[in-house]
C-alpha cells in the first residue's frame, strides 16, 4: 500500500470542531483503553504536545481530546519525511457510568493519561451469599 508523504497542508475543517481554526493535518492518536474496578484509563500517544495545549471537552456524552502540537521543523530541507507534525484529535462516546466531574488527566513523555472514574453505582460489588 503506497504511503502518502505529501507535505501539502490542507485545512482540517472537515475534522475539527469550529473552535480549532489552525490549518494543517490533524492526526488521530493511538489509544489504549483499559478498564479497572474504579475507573477507565485512556492512554493516548501525543508526542510533541504540551500540557497547555491539551483541550478536553465533554459535551452531550462525547469526550473530545484535542492536543495542540507546537509546530516544529517548518521550512526545513527534508531528506526523509515519514510523518507530519500536527494537532491530535480524537472523540469518544462516554456513557452514563462515568463520573464526568471527576475526570482527570496528566501528560508525561508525550503520553496523555486520562482517568475516567466510574460512578459509585457502576463499580463492581461483591455480593455475599448468606447461608
Amino acid at each position, binding site marked *: *500500500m503506497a*504511503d*502518502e*508523504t505529501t507535505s501539502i497542508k*490542507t485545512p*482540517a475543517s472537515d*475534522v475539527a470542531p469550529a473552535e480549532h481554526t489552525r490549518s494543517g*493535518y*490533524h*492526526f*488521530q*492518536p*493511538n*489509544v*489504549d*483503553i*483499559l*478498564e*479497572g*474496578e474504579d475507573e*477507565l*484509563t485512556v*492512554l493516548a*500517544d*501525543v*508526542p*510533541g*504536545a*504540551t500540557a497547555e495545549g491539551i483541550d478536553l471537552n465533554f459535551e452531550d456524552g462525547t469526550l473530545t481530546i484535542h492536543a495542540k502540537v507546537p509546530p*516544529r*521543523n517548518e521550512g*526545513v*530541507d*527534508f*531528506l*526523509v*519525511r*515519514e*510523518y*507530519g507534525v500536527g494537532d491530535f*484529535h480524537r472523540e469518544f462516546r462516554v456513557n452514563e457510568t462515568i463520573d464526568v466531574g471527576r475526570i482527570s488527566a496528566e501528560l508525561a*513523555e*508525550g*503520553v496523555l493519561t486520562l482517568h475516567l472514574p466510574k460512578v459509585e453505582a457502576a463499580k463492581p460489588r461483591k455480593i455475599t451469599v448468606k447461608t
Partner: protein
Amino acid sequence: MVFRYISPLHPVHQLRREMDRIWSTVMGENKEPPWTGIVRGQPAVNVWETDEALFAELETPGLKSDQLDISVIGDQLTIKVERPEVEESKLTYHRRERPVGAFTRVLRLPVAVEGDRVEAELQNGVLTVRLPKAAAARPRKIQVVTK
C-alpha cells in the same frame, strides 16, 4: 505499527489502518523489517539537514532515555527502541492501539558524520538526533540527554 499514523482522518485511510491492524495480527508483531521499506512495525522517522548537521527525529511517546539505544557506525545510524507492556493484571483492554515491543530502525546517512559529536535529545516524547557532518567513520555510543 508506526508510533503515529501518517494519514489524515479519511475513510480510505481508516480502512487502510484497519487492514494493517488485521494484517499485523495475522503476521505477528516485532518482525525485523527490511531497512529499505517503510514497513509498519517500525517508528516513523523524519530526516533533514542543515549546512552543519543532519537531524533525525522520531516520535517516541512514553519512552525514557534508558529505553532508547542510539549508535552511529560510519554512515549508518541505528536506533533501537524498547517499549514495555503496561503491566496491569487486573485491568482489561477495551482498545489497544499503542505499539509495544522492540523496534529497530537503521538509516543510511547520505553524508559522513562525526560520531563523537552526535547528540540526542528527548522532549515531550520526541527524540531528536543531531549528527554534525564530518568525515569520520568510527563507531560511537551516543548519550541521550533528557530534557
